[in-house]
């Protein structure tokens, strides 16, 4: 895989997350029932950043959880590499909440399917909404995002790499090609 184009830099990414935070607040008036759950790995960092955007706007902090969907995947036996289980940490009750699920890239939709399965084991949220930084298309399941940073149509030969300061030392989104 080689880098084809750089699509987002630090500033663009920051503005995008702030916009998503505003959209979340616009759609959900009651901040008391709002919570964020990030999907490992990069969804966790994005959820944390959206939460601090919301805090800046509303001067109120909202709970943020971590979801590891490894154990819920439907392709565990198909992936060649070692699946690494890193653990889930949702230390608040999700029942009755408006839960915003956060991930970096929305692609086949299978990760989100697994995440929805996992979340039902933690309780019954009032609403689950989905926020993603990039939607690259090619869905294999009937799933769509409520908040999208950027729609990036891709071919199957391409992949989207989201790099974040917390995990990769810099903020950028690039498109890679075989």
């Amino acid at each position, binding site marked *: 895989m080689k880098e084809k184009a750089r699509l987002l830099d630090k500033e663009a990414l920051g503005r995008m997350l702030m916009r998503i935070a505003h959209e979340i607040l616009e759609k959900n008036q009651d901040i008391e029932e709002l919570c964020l759950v990030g999907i490992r790995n990069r969804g966790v960092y994005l959820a944390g950043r959206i939460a601090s955007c919301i805090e800046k706007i509303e001067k109120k902090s909202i709970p943020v959880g971590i979801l*590891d969907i*490894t*154990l*819920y995947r439907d392709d*565990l*036996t*198909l992936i*060649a*590499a*070692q*699946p*690494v*289980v*890193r*653990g*889930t*940490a949702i230390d608040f009750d999700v029942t009755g909440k408006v839960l915003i699920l956060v991930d970096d890239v929305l692609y086949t939709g299978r990760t989100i399917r697994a995440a929805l*399965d*996992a979340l039902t*084991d*933690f*309780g019954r949220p009032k609403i689950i909404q989905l926020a993603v930084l990039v939607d690259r298309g090619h869905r294999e399941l009937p799933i769509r995002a409520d908040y999208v940073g950027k729609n990036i149509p891709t071919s199957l030969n391409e992949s989207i790499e989201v790099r974040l300061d917390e995990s990769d030392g810099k903020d950028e989104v690039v498109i890679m090609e075989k």
Partner: protein
Amino acid sequence: MVWSSKDLLGLEGLSREEIEFILDTASSFKEVSSREIKKVPALRGKTVVNLFYEPSTRTRVSFEIAAKRLSADVINIASETSSVRKGETLVDTGRNIEALKVDIIVIRHNYSGAAQMLARHLKASVVNAGDGWHEHPTQALLDMFTLREKLGRIQGLKVSIVGDIAHSRVARSNIWGLVKLGAQVTVCAPKMLIPAAIEEMGVGVTEDIDLALSGADAVNVLRMQFERDGENAFPRQLDYFSNFGITQERLKKAKKDIIVMHPGPINRGIEMSSEVADGMSSVILEQVTNGIAVRMAVLFLVAQANDRIKNNEDAH
């Protein structure tokens, strides 16, 4: 790091990285048991057989709970009630279980090497739940998991293992694992219960319990197996407690925050006093809880590895 073995037979053959990988995976599984719905679908559709040739409640129940929390189906076979009684060999029993399309066999056997032999003959995963005096890897892993959770590390810890070292697979697995992870291990027992050349495993040896406790970060107290009392070299129960039993008085001279472990079942008043077993230093029940997370990790890793092995065979 990739876990590539379809079996877990012992800690002797594992690298430090592999042991740490199991412990890291286990940390992630621990959270599952604290949920209201204590179940994840990772091993849905897999079948686990607990094949126990020796009486065991805690290890078998722990494996059973671990498998069920991963959504596997579990069947228990105890040798007293099976055709082992009719003279079937271990490998034949294993092959018959495999013919039932079982994915993982968890075996406890009184012969050293039983798990290894079964693993060599079967394509199913084999997990050693204790073989003779040889190894009991998941017990040592849960002991190390507990140590790491309590003290934050294994590297550089001083750990003393007290009791019947000679007949203990728990001791052997612990020594292999702890030494690989950089702990400083001392074994302490009456001379007759210390096997010859144990120093070659990289441990210190003492017959002085106060010396074993002095400066130790943790003491792992083994069960005295008085069912072996017929062997006349075995110490008498009362003598053992006065010379080697862990008491509050002895702990007073040890590090203030020393951790006391025991694989169970405890003989109160023989290996340790009740005050110690139920006291502040004891992490015995936490070991039991951690055993589930460790066994979930092991079952998950061997099942994953075996799926990859089978996929590769299909591809060729």
